């Protein structure tokens, strides 16, 4: 029996620590395992016994790239438990800070981490020698996103200004003046970015995914909506456990999430875009049509174009929200804790981030559950890897390895967040 093992011992240009093992037996791809070996983070356990008021600051530490996603899902869950609704300008500011996170996170991934795969460079530094303007543009976009986080969150990494009920401090209208100009420049750069990445050579590859995302009555989703799919799913976020489950698998410290009835599903930009295209402004729909994405996208490699489109959207949305901003009289609404269970689900850059908390009467956390986007995508990533690598089994290991790493980066996996994630090995038997 011919055995072949290809191993990527440590995956580069992803957030966190993971690896990939491909098992090839008698010339057929038998198994692909995404091994997440970053140690468990134990956030759900350390939240027990802590006050609801501390939660946004603790939970921001889960991720340095997408802390807002965790903060937003948490504050919505807290408010859901305590029967509070945050509306008006405070709600608008929450969408605005999320725009900042999408801009900085997507810009980093699209240009610095993913684009080198398509253009044949080992990293962004090598790519910058030939595509300096694109890299300079990415840096400017990232800076703009960070500025928005700093303005609303106090600082760009692990922001400190988000609290249950709203914010600790809300900005004056005049404070948005400098960022407004930056956002207009960022929007133009993002449009150029869409047109640039759309010219990349994309592998001819599609899969029939079950896309899962939030869907809101009239907005492209950030903070609110029902959990829907392109099949028959349409549920309230509180009913998540009725349709989804998490399983331990031996090769990953991250729990695998699956649909109870159908298994693997996909969250993130491709899913959001497929399920909410009609919620995008007409100008962005037209840009999508210009780059050939008006009829949706089942090719995960083209997720880079969708991410770039979402940067344009986030810039547009931020400018719209700033244009309508009137400083609210109170920075937050009053919250009275009670013994209750609350749910929160928001759209992190990488997909839905679902939280459930059970509180004591004084607002102390009794139990916490956090389902990050990357843990939900693991099964889909492994299925992609089998489909992508299967036609390549007769190719040299480095060809298979390169395409597999590129496939994993289609998902912009945040391994640190999901650990409860990369190296590649291929075993041929």
């Amino acid at each position, binding site marked *: 029996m011919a055995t072949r093992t290809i191993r990527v011992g440590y995956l580069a240009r992803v957030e966190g620590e993971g690896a990939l093992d491909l098992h090839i037996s008698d010339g057929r791809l038998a198994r692909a395992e995404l091994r997440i070996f970053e140690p468990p983070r134990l956030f759900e356990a350390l939240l027990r016994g802590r006050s609801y008021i501390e939660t946004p600051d603790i939970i921001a530490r889960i991720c*340095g790239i997408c802390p807002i996603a965790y903060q937003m899902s948490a504050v919505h869950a807290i408010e859901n438990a305590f029967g509070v609704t945050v509306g008006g300008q405070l709600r608008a500011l929450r969408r605005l800070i999320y725009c900042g996170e999408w801009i900085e996170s997507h810009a980093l991934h699209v240009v610095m981490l993913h684009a080198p795969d398509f253009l044949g460079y080992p990293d962004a530094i090598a790519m*910058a020698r030939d595509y300096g303007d694109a890299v300079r543009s990415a840096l400017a976009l990232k*800076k703009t996103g960070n500025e928005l986080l700093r303005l609303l969150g106090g600082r760009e990494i692990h922001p400190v200004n988000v609290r249950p009920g709203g914010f600790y401090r809300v900005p004056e209208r005049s404070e948005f003046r400098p960022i407004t100009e930056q956002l207009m420049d960022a929007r133009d750069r993002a449009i150029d970015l869409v047109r640039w990445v759309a010219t990349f050579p994309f592998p001819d590859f599609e899969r029939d995914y079950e896309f899962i995302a939030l869907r809101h009555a009239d907005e492209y989703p950030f903070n609110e909506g029902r959990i829907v799919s392109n099949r028959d799913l349409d549920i309230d976020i509180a009913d998540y456990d009725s349709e989804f489950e998490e399983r331990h698998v031996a090769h990953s410290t991250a729990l695998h999430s699956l649909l109870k009835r159908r298994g693997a599903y996909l969250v993130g930009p491709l899913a959001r875009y497929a399920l909410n295209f009609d919620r995008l402004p007409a100008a962005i729909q037209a840009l999508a049509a210009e780059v050939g994405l008006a009829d949706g996208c089942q090719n995960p490699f083209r997720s880079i174009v969708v991410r770039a489109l979402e940067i344009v959207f986030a810039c547009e949305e931020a400018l719209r929200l700033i244009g309508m901003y009137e400083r609210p009289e109170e920075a937050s609404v009053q919250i009275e804790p009670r013994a209750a269970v609350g749910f929160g689900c928001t759209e992190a850059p990488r997909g839905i981030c679902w939280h459930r908390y059970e509180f004591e009467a004084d607002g102390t956390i009794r139990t916490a559950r956090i389902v990050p986007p990357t843990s939900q995508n693991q099964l889909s990533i492994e299925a992609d890897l089998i489909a992508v690598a299967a036609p390549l089994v007769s190719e040299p290991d480095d060809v298979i390895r390169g395409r597999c790493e590129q496939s994993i980066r289609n998902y912009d996996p945040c391994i640190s967040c999901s650990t409860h994630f990369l190296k590649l090995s291929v075993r041929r038997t």
Partner: protein
Amino acid sequence: MKEAPTRRALVVGLGNPDRGDDGVGRLVMEKLAGLLPADVPIVQIAGNILDLLTEWVGFDAVICVDAAAPLTTPGRIHRFDLAISELPRNATITSSHAVSLTDAIELSRVLHLAPRDIIVFAIEGASFTGATMAPEVAAAAVEVVGRVAAEVTKLQHISDKLAADKRDEAANSFAS
């Protein structure tokens, strides 16, 4: 009378004060407050090291202070003049971030965004967990404060021609 400085200088402290000795860059910046000329900004970067690339645009000289992984002795101070030597590529400067200081500088040079002169002070740490700093690392911070202040004066007043001559001299010495 002392001549007015001809070159713009920036001082940057790198590191996260919540990660033990990684906070030494920030500690040096705090101690430098009020000791530097008013036209020399002090910037602290705790997370996004890519911010360096936009922060130092337009400056002629930058001095960075960062923690380094332990090699021999906690508190040992290394000075790198990047006109003369490169930062070691592996496992010296400790960064908990996706982009290392070495990579950020290389990317900055490729994009023609890097200042002409970059000096890096790297202080060997002992532990990078918790909020407590090793005494020998904190003591090294005091020494680095004086050395940064002296370096600023030198870099501000050295002429661009002298700086270029210095680089050429270094390059020739490597060539020979």
